[in-house]
């Protein structure tokens, strides 16, 4: 008995890998179709903030994630872009992460296709090129945005675009949202939001989500979308189900697996100790 249990405890980890593969792959082939309920408070706060903005307000959307975190953050970005454009807000897409430019192209290609076909580039939204040195860029955005962003990503001058009308610095914008898998949101809070009293919200990976608790409590962040659950929540809010919702559904079995594994091994340890 004891030997068998000990052996079971030292099971080849490749078997555990296999179990995870099966439990994560199966719901992709055949979705469980469970509803995503219990929306997070911080996600709802962003949604409400955008809902209550006057039309044609400017939303600065800084997309700073690369393909490594695409499954978590791309659905968030898509959902936010959809919401903002549907609310008839102006959207400026920025990036301070060089790996993100390809992800932004994906969104750029989708806007005329299925996100908001009636919106016009240069009038309703604009996409800025990548800029190095995040801190310098943020500091400058608080003074005069055109000194750094004088051209959009295609090399056209931004100063007289209709979408940029009345915008000189972030002080003229309505909201900033930074979606990132790195510490970029921390920089935004410190160098842009706090310094210019600019409302800032964020979308982050699940790994870093708990770290933003203090900023949410002080109101330095107006809201936070965390990981795939956050993306699913946002999709539910705007009533447009996509990868986030199907993803969180597929994670169900794997999550339960982790709990079962922790409990099993610890119970075995207990039994072994008192046997």
């Amino acid at each position, binding site marked *: 008995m004891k030997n068998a249990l000990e052996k079971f405890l*030292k099971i080849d*980890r490749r078997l555990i890998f296999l179990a995870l593969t099966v439990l994560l792959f199966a719901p992709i082939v055949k979705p469980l179709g469970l509803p995503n309920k219990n929306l997070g408070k911080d996600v709802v706060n962003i949604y409400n903030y955008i809902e209550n903005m006057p039309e044609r307000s400017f939303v600065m959307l800084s997309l700073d994630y690369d393909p490594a975190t695409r499954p978590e953050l791309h659905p968030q970005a898509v959902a936010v872009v959809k919401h903002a454009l549907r609310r008839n807000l102006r959207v400026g897409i920025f990036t301070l992460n060089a790996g993100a430019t390809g992800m932004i192209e994906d969104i750029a290609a989708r806007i005329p296709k299925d996100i908001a076909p009636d919106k016009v580039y240069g009038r309703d939204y604009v996409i800025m090129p990548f800029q190095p040195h995040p801190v310098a860029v943020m500091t400058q955005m608080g003074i005069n945005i055109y000194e750094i962003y004088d051209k959009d990503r295609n090399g056209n001058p931004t100063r007289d675009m209709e979408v940029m009308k009345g915008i000189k610095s972030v002080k003229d914008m309505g909201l900033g949202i930074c979606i990132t898998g790195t510490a970029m949101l921390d920089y935004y809070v410190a160098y842009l939001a*706090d310094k210019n*009293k600019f409302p800032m919200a964020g979308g982050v990976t699940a*790994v*870093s989500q708990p*770290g933003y608790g203090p900023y949410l409590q002080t109101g330095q962040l107006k809201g936070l979308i965390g990981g795939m659950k956050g993306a699913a929540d946002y999709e539910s809010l705007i009533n447009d189900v996509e990868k986030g919702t199907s993803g969180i559904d597929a994670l169900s079995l794997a999550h339960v697996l982790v709990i079962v594994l922790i409990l099993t091994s610890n119970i075995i340890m207990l039994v072994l100790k008192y046997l």
Partner: protein
Amino acid sequence: MKKIPLFLSFLFLSSFSNAAKPTAKGAPNLPPLSGFTAADMPGDAGGTALLRWNSPGEAAEGALVEVHASSAAGAGWVKLAEFPAAAKLEKDMDLPFWAWRPSPGRHAAAVDTSSAFGRPAGEQELEFKLRLVKGSASVETEPARAVINGNWFNLSRLNNLILMLTIIIVFFWTVSHAKRKGLFIRRIAGLDAIDEAIGRATEMGRPIFYSTGIGPMSLVPTIASTSILGEVARKVAQYDTSLKVPHFDPIVMTVCKEVVKQSYLEMERPDSYRDDTNFFVSQDQFSYAASVDAMIHREKPAACFFIGHFMAESLLLAEVGATTGAIQIAGTEQESQLPFFFTSCDYTLIGEELYAAGAYLSKEPMLTSTLKVQDFGKAFVMLAVAAGAILIAAGAMFELDALSKVVTQLFKAY
């Protein structure tokens, strides 16, 4: 160059404001705004005026206040802003008590003039007037002049400045003290755990593994890790156990070789020192983890130390040690990796504990002084939170609004 667009805008604006020239007919039920003053907005880069006036009272309910301005050159009036007459009380101004004294029954507005009149480097004289509008009736104040300019100090950031200067002073004080007579740092409990682990390894006659992580030598956790490695090596030399230090970074390896050699010398066992204690594995995160894993699996060490800067490989490393039954001691500053270390290791040095352990062992003035400044900051925060909470609660209980306000504004960033 800059003057031409400015000039053009004057032309354009003057013709525009001529058309909108206010009709000076006061409605009988609309009282004129009294006590109107205009001045430069303090603590800004220029281009903003501070206007103050007395509250128009209930008669102006639902009315709007319009701000008009004119350049001193005598050009026409330009409308700068418009807001409800009940808004913008002086006490609503987002400035701390040391930079702003609100008087009751007064309104104040910071009005941006730069969009209409530009923002010259020097002084700029402008004329302002307020217009109270309700329906078709309107009433105007006498114009007031103000000289607008940029200021040399943002008074509302005084709390920040004082704190910064304090930190600089404390910093230099600790640096000089640490160099002259050293500073007290308590012994971290984790160090006892390290001794215990080495003791057990000696009993079992099995080797000890020590990984400094994947950080370069410039990172503080790596520096702290090398000091702890020195301590471990001293114990190892004393008990004559075998030590293995697989490396990710060649420079860190060179430093660690010196550190271990020095420890053996200090314990007077230079003959037992082996140069292959420190060895290079791979400069690739996952290959490094896989190779170290394989080694741990093969050699079944009695104790494993994972101290330094770790990223995702923490998972792979800590797991294999746990399954081979080694005593594991970990320490990192990476918050995302700490949960894994904590659950699979016997003792974990959390963040600054690692720095403290390094500073305690090395007595290096730079490490200890940093730690001291941090302790000073923490003591300040603890005091501020405790005292602030009590004062604010007292303020709320005894309805001392001023007290609560003072405390809140002291710890606010502007």
